[in-house]
């Protein structure tokens, strides 16, 4: 296949690079202040064991989780793919017009925004709210709008809402807070994702802004969309994952809020009669999305299910630094490339960058779960090569190696090969 042309993509990202790269460096600096190398390694080992244990025994663990969540009054619904998940969410929403939602990779994955385009769907995460008014695509899992300046945002607010807001981050946040509060009080449906589920029946959602607390508690119905790979055995394990999300995601010691939801709100204050639905949500739904995860679970890519979506793998990824969201699919980077292989096809995985990775292992060094994406991309390339999906340059190199024992081909005395395909 023809190598892909990334020239325009690289040129276009000159500005984005200047905005976003310093933030990524600062995450590492902050992380290094919280954990020294030795502590970091110890923590990573511990996290890896938690996830290995959970994913290896996921069949039984999932059953136990569902049983315990239902005992706590949470309605658990399994969805096989995006279409199914969207259908089930729509059934719960019913005739309601206004829906508020928080930031979630799983919500992005099912493209809920498209499925609910006949509704008024409001993003309550600040970054996502800004991306939404720009009608763009988030650039990084924990940094959705890092490429936009206050000036651009202020201009956009004027355009969309007719309001004059100073090109100052504080003023912008104040305006969005006011706007979102009104929507939150009005909405009957709140949709969020989840970071971890513990098999003893609790759902953990971490955040800094406070929008998830409000989205999950003010509306009557709280819908949580997530996937079975978020399940761990105990609440103790879950809190370690929460901590990892903060430290490896943004270099924060601990998130401002950790929402631990173990059922709809309830009270028995009046004559000891138990009433479900007090001040928080009256109904809590958990939708467990599969979307080929079962297939990944039973493949040589199982490790991918240890991922907690912190985005640390991207922070010093040499390829992501040049082309950002051009690399990957619903999920950025190598993870997105592999997921598109399972969900779409080998050709799509090729287009999304199966041969962009330099296998430098930087991602694995930063990953709290020690997921070796360089090794996974090698496995993917093997499967693609078996299907004859590879750049022409690779095919030529392999031919040279077979025929001449070196990657450059026939070498004339005193001449230097032009194409330096090596290592």
């Amino acid at each position, binding site marked *: 296949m023809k190598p892909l042309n990334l020239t325009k993509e690289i040129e276009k990202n000159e500005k984005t690079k200047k905005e976003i790269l310093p933030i990524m460096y600062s995450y590492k600096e902050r992380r290094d202040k919280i954990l020294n190398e030795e502590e970091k390694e110890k923590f990573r080992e511990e996290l890896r064991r938690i996830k290995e244990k959970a994913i290896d025994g996921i069949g039984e663990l999932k059953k136990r989780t569902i049983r315990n969540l239902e005992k706590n009054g949470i309605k658990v619904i399994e969805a096989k793919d995006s279409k199914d998940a969207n259908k089930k969410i729509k059934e719960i929403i019913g005739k309601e017009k206004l829906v508020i939602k928080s930031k979630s990779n799983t919500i992005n994955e099912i493209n809920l925004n498209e499925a609910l385009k006949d509704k008024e769907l409001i993003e309550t995460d600040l970054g996502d709210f800004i991306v939404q008014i720009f009608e763009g695509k988030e650039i990084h899992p924990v940094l959705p709008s890092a490429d936009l300046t206050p000036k651009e945002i202020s201009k956009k607010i004027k355009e969309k809402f007719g309001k004059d807001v100073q090109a100052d981050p504080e003023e912008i946040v104040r305006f969005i807070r006011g706007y979102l509060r009104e929507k939150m009080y009005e909405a009957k449906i709140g949709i969020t994702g989840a970071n971890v589920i513990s098999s003893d029946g609790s759902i953990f959602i971490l955040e800094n802004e406070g929008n998830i607390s409000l989205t999950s508690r003010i509306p009557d119905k709280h819908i949580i969309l997530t996937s079975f790979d978020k399940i761990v055995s105990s609440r103790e394990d879950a809190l370690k994952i929460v901590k990892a999300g903060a430290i490896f995601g943004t270099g924060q010691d601990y998130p401002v809020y950790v929402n631990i939801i173990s059922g709809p709100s309830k009270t028995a204050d009046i004559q000891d009669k138990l009433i479900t639905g007090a001040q928080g949500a009256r109904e809590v739904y958990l939708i467990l999305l599969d979307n080929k995860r079962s297939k990944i679970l039973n493949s040589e890519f199982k490790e991918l299910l240890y991922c907690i979506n912190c985005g640390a793998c991207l922070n010093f990824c040499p390829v992501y630094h040049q082309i950002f969201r051009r690399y990957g699919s619903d999920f950025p980077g190598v993870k997105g490339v592999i997921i598109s292989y399972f969900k779409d096809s080998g050709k799509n995985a090729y287009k999304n960058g199966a041969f962009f990775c330099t296998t430098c292992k930087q991602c694995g060094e930063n990953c709290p779960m020690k997921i070796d994406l360089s090794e996974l991309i090698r496995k993917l390339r*093997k499967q693609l090569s078996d299907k004859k999906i590879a750049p022409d340059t690779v095919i030529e190199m392999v031919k040279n190696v077979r025929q001449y*024992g070196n990657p450059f081909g026939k070498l004339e005395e005193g001449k230097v090969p032009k194409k*330096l395909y*090596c*290592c």
Partner: protein
Amino acid sequence: MGILNLFGGNTLYYPGCLTKFVAKDLGENYKRILDKIGIDFIVLRDLEVCCGNPVLNAGHEKEARELAKKNFKLFKERGVKKIITSCPACFHMFNKNYPQLIKKWDIKVEHITQTIARAIKKGKINTKKLNTEITYHDPCHLGRYEGIYEEPREIIKKAGNLKEMKLARNYSFCCGGGSGVKSNQPNLADSIAKERVNMAKETNAKVLCTSCPMCYLHLKENSGGLEVKEISQLFEDRKEK
């Protein structure tokens, strides 16, 4: 250069394809360095084949295994007991992948920076004095893949003042050339190299030094005026003798 020694076992200097066919001067430097240290070594020139790292990274495991078998057979025929290579990718391939690809693999492998750092300590060789600030780029295959961070630094510190980049050692930022990206997506590879070169420039070092022929050639192509050296170039060359 050594004579075939089937009883005691031979030490092979394996330069790797990129050094053997492209960066030939580096190969000459290293042979001279090994001679100076007093290591009795053999070379197998066109008899040996590619180590298999590029095909393995491209997903062609079968080809990698065939190359490994060919090399192993040849190495055994020549009584090779130890390989010294100056290429980090070949080093990783022999050290970590060959034992998986070939059950009987029993050959010791060393990266040449290990050989040289040891010889410096024993006083057998020394670098030139550059009297300048040098920054070091950790090649992925030598650093993260093999955990060799100290030896190249020990060598560089003999030649000048080492100034670290903001991403170094296990967090070293890739040069962009590896895993076929230099050929598959040349613009992407160049853009990555430029980012790395900028990190080197930020240290105000006068020289960017590395210990991998691919990193060296690729960074040099994208150096924007910064002097790029491969570690063997820190030693006396023939002309200066």
